């Protein structure tokens, strides 16, 4: 059984009087432990797909099952709990909370888990160690480079050991060197820690690191 099962998903938006069709009849399986890159031109629905998987948005019709849970039928409060346990999300623009240190940013998802302060501190230390920023724990986002910020965001996404890690254009705002560091990190997370990763990207170089590349164009998927 696949970790992610997308069945006959249809998604449309209403903009004024116009209905915009994003997907029609999208069907897809993603296996546990895979590293999938989803590519496609702007407006092809890549980010919408990621939002649907994370339960941040709902399909117009069809079903999305992640780790056996039907994401599209959950209540908002159940979704919040489910997301805390199963989803790690990385944004293009890092979206770290600027008033919290790197360690405090990474600790945020752990506040939703039944862990002691000591356990949380240990996990934060490990996560920041994995992304190579153990020595930046007390630094604020403004004191970090873009690449470092994104690595902190990745640490935040993996710290609670989620079932699925979703990344929306993680290298989109990074220079080449920083982007390479992030991509190497993702590869390592998949290879060494067997994390299931889905990354949305424009960058063909980034997609090369993935084990599976899917192309989304006008709502249609192609391998």
């Amino acid at each position, binding site marked *: 059984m696949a970790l992610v099962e997308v069945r006959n998903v249809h998604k449309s938006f209403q903009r004024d009087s116009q209905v915009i069709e994003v997907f029609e009849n999208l069907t897809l399986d993603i296996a546990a432990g895979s590293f999938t890159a989803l590519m496609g031109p702007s407006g092809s629905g890549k980010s919408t797909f990621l939002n649907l998987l994370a339960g941040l948005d709902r399909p117009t019709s069809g079903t999305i099952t992640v780790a056996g849970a039907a994401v599209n039928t959950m209540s908002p409060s159940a979704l919040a709990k489910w997301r805390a346990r199963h989803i790690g999300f990385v944004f293009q623009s890092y979206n770290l*909370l600027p008033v919290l240190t790197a360690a405090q940013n990474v600790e945020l998802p752990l506040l939703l888990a039944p862990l002691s302060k000591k356990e949380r501190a240990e996990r934060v230390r490990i996560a920041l160690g994995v992304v190579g920023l153990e020595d930046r724990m007390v630094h604020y986002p403004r004191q970090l480079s873009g690449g470092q910020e994104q690595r902190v965001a990745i640490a935040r996404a993996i710290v609670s050991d989620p079932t699925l890690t979703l990344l929306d254009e993680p290298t989109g705002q990074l220079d080449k060197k920083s982007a390479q560091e992030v991509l190497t990190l993702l590869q390592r997370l998949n290879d060494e820690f067997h994390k299931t990763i889905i990354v949305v990207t424009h960058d063909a170089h980034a997609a090369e690191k993935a084990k599976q590349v899917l192309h989304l164009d006008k709502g249609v998927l192609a391998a």
Partner: protein
Amino acid sequence: MKIPLVYNLRSIAHRPVSTAMTALGLALVVAVFVAMLALAGGFRATLARTGSPDNVVVLRRGATSEMESGVPRESARLIAADPRIASGADARPLVSPEVFVVINIPRAVGEGVNNVVARGVNDEAFAVRNIHLVAGRKFASGRSEIILGKKIVPRFAHTAIGDTLRFANRDWIVVGHFAAAGSALESEIWGENEQFMPVFRGEVFQSVIFRLRDPAAFDEVKRALEGDQRLQVQAQRESAFYAGQSTVLTRILTFLAIMITSVMAVGAVFGAVNTMYAAVSSRTPEIAVLLTLGFAPRSVLASFLSESVAIALLGGVAGGLLALPINGIVTSTTNWNSFSEVAFAFRVTPGLLVGGVIFAVVMGLVGGFFPAWRAARLQVVQALR
């Protein structure tokens, strides 16, 4: 689990100007709130301090104040003979038949006159009322001499010892100043009742004040006095009598405090609303991140409410500190029962300061609710775009 408070506190510190302006708005409301209630509290405390639960005030039946009371000399004599009245060191009953009249005397500063109470008392009044002289001596019996409450002295002209005050077509020599534990009596002029009686209201006292031998016997004494058909009087504990005198003005001041600060509070709450809406608006991506991480909308609501309350707490404490210096400042107002001036001090109590902070917190909760509600209902997908 809640969103850590440090997030809100640092966010507040991150925008010091808008935080300070909002807190200042709330602080001014709290300062006015505390000041006005300190005024009411000071007046009430001064009158409450005037009356002792061990003393009994006897007035003509149906009279609501000493102004409209009249107790004939014979009635006063009968009351003084009651065996339940305590005795002084000289074994004489601690009872004072008193003349009460309102006169006007010139103010120390500026033109014009003000009403003050002139009270004719006997020697026992000093023990009954716990009066002690702070300067000069007592008035001598049979002479046109007066002593003045210490709060009158700086506020009116010709109040130094040796000065002469003219009222009731006679000149009265000031021979002493007295204190009465900060009570309203310190705003009175005292002279011998036998001197005041003929020049003011004829052969009648306005009240009889006495000290109970056993304070628990009040009900029994009251029944006896009010049941005696010869007397036609009513008896009240002195503490209840003066507390009753403060009721009307205290209520008016409290009502004004609530009215004025309510109007001001509306403005301050709008300030808080504005600040918090701006905070929510500028931190939309952060809120979206929190919701994406799995924090429930109610956690976001609580987080932004706590931020608003933290600003309000800051304002509340600052407002209390702003109001604190008025504590003890002496002012005066008219006692609406006697239409005479009563000097009293603003009374900023710990309870009042706590009340001010609670008021600020309520303003913070009201002002923060709708912005926090908006934050909690944020659509993550839209917010992330």
